[in-house]
């Protein structure tokens, strides 16, 4: 299945070259999607656990603090890396 992924927030430039859609087995969990995204990121870079997780525009918590999330074909996953610049 395919889900649409959008990554924003801190260090957004590192994910600028990633494809808008990623392929996953059906069904898939959020963790599997994140593992796939981390493989596509530049070497040595991974998403931080405090990234906010939005699915279809709904906030589900952060990567390190959320209820189980299963993904379906066509889902829109947004990950927002925490921003604190003053």
């Amino acid at each position, binding site marked *: 299945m395919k889900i649409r992924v959008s990554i*924003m927030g801190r260090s*957004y430039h590192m994910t600028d070259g990633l494809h808008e859609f990623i392929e996953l087995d059906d069904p898939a969990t959020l963790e599997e999607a994140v593992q796939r995204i981390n493989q596509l990121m530049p070497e040595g870079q991974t998403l931080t656990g405090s990234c906010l997780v939005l699915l279809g525009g709904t*906030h589900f918590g952060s990567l390190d603090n959320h209820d189980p999330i299963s993904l379906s074909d066509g889902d829109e996953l947004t990950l927002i890396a925490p921003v*604190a610049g003053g």
Partner: protein
Amino acid sequence: MGAGVLSEEGQLRLKGASAFVSRTGGMGGPASLMLTMAGVGRVILAHGGDLISPDLNRQVLGSERGLETPRATQFADYLRSMNRFVTVEAIDHEPNDAEAMELAARSDIVLSCAPTFEERLRLNRVAAAARIPFIDAAQWGMMGTLMVLRAGSTACLQCVYPTQPPFEELFPVVGAISSAVGSLAALEAIKVLSGCGRVAWGQLLTLDGFQAQTAFVPLRRDPQCRCCSTMFNDVEFNDMEECV
């Protein structure tokens, strides 16, 4: 401010209000300027250190003339020059827990514009303890975020970041986005303090200037939150849900 924007009552409420802005950088600078120009009665600025040259790409309150001199005091002077009816207080350092608590206790709102999550979470805690609204304005490069929170009726910042995100000493700043986010933080504060307009309670605004996208996202409260779940009981949450 003009008829049709704020009622006379709303403007009087602004005049009687106090806003605590911690730090006066790329967002706290424009936020405090807009609060001062709108006529918020007391604006309290907190910022340690001197104004330095690399900061000038986003300092709307500073200029070449003020380099290597303390930031908070010169910015406060500038704000006083913009509106003689506003009392401006300058705190020339980052407030610790006790001082932040004291400042929040005599303010009606906290604007969090700090470079570290440690300070942002501290400001969130003191705003929650003082039962006052909390606005978090942040940016990175061409991207900005704004959260308008009121612990007890919405998520608090600790609900959003249960684990303190890592500190980043150096980060890119495009002054156009920090200034936009700071101004929007002031706008939300003006609505809260005046009672005019619909406040974006409990929402995260993302302003992604790089991708040319914006969104409002309702933020989920964490029932296990170390900050707000221990300060407010369920009755208070239910009673205040209408604010959201």
